[in-house]
């Protein structure tokens, strides 16, 4: 597929819809899953590494605002943190080699931790109240996000390798 602005917008929108689908299914199955797994972060990380900082920032904005719309938190906090996540993930991944699987997982983990710290700080600042960390369960989220995100990229490479061998 040719990489045009229009194409990127469509991909960003589809990525957001996929995140909504995953979030809805996971939430309906086991609400506790949503504390340890953030489908929107996975989508932002995955596409930011593939497409770069501008795409990452725009997708982060969209995913973050959609996440905020399904929450009683302050609208825009998720948008801001995911915009920064998308931008810096895309920016750094263009400057250092994050292709090896282990490095990719570690990079995603670091970026997820940064996003979580930002989210906790901004939420505490805006609400002027301590943030509920769900008994520390919320800190598992970056690990799960990194594992799922890097697994997706590994899966994509595996499929590409198989199809190129087939061709």
């Amino acid at each position, binding site marked *: 597929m040719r990489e045009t602005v229009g194409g990127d917008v469509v991909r960003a929108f589809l990525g*957001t*819809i996929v995140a*909504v*689908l995953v*979030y*809805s*299914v996971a*939430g*309906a199955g086991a*609400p*506790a899953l*949503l*504390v340890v797994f953030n489908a*929107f972060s996975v989508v932002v990380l995955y596409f930011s590494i593939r497409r770069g*900082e*501008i795409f990452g*920032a*725009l997708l*982060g*904005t969209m995913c*973050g*605002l*959609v*996440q*905020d*719309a*399904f*929450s*009683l*938190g*302050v*609208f*825009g*906090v*998720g*948008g*801001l943190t995911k*915009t*920064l996540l998308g*931008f810096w993930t895309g*920016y750094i991944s263009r400057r250092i080699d994050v292709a090896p699987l282990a490095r990719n997982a570690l990079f995603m983990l670091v970026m997820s931790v940064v996003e979580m710290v930002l989210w906790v700080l*901004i939420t505490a600042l*805006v*609400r002027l*109240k301590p943030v*509920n960390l*769900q*008994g520390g369960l919320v800190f598992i989220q970056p690990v799960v996000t990194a594992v799922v995100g890097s697994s997706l990229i590994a899966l994509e490479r595996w499929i590409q390798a198989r199809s190129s061998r087939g061709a």
Partner: protein
Amino acid sequence: MPLWERRRSALVLVGLTVFHLLLISLQVPQGTQKSLFEKGVFFLFSPIQRAATLTVRGIGSVWNGYFDLRGVRRENQKLKKENFFLKQDLRFLEDRLQLAQSEAQLKASLAAFEGTIVAARVIGVDSTNPHQSIVIDKGSFDGVAKDMAVCDRNGALVGRTIGPVGFKEAMVQLVTDKDSSVSVKSEVDGLTGAVTGRSTEICDLRYVLASGSGGHIGDELRTTGADRIYPAGIRVGAIQSVEADPATPIFRRIVVKPYFGFDTIDVVAVLTKGPGGGG
């Protein structure tokens, strides 16, 4: 080379950051007030959420239906539905009987609840904290509006509908949300207060004076109706612990365990009439 070409990434980042900061600033200190933009995003994406949940349930249903005896399954579903409404009716009948002072009052109360329950399925939970809100598959087309009480399948209070209410979807603020407040009264000794959430599984019973009597572990709390949102007599939860509050010595620290749980809110009842529903 123009500035946009040279500094495109930085300009996009600055633009988006300023946009979000403005968005956040507009809401502070309201916090839970929904802006038009937020409502728009909810309206746009809630049908997708609804479709996803229905598709997954549909696939599961087809799978089960294939193996089950179809007639028995249909009958089972019908009985489940009837059972749900009967449980709700029974709960409200019990509540009304306890509250009613005379036969005339009882008749008036029963008439008020006739045909006012809308059964809804939960299609999503809060994306950042499951204890704050849920999304149900009934909206304005089904008679659901803002500030209507929502109960679980056993008649225990779950929360209230809040804006935005979509055509076929609505958001429900749970009683466990930190911004939720429900006026309640103890069934045992008449102790009154407000149940507020912590955005965890438990709540606090606030504004109970330390000098007052009453309030024991296990006491059942029911809505008073004084908040003009929840009808009186709905079961909310039971007192879990009572202790002195060092932070505010004039009040007692009472922890309440709500009756509803995520295992009992796959189907909920929206009370379309009552103080909040404008009935």
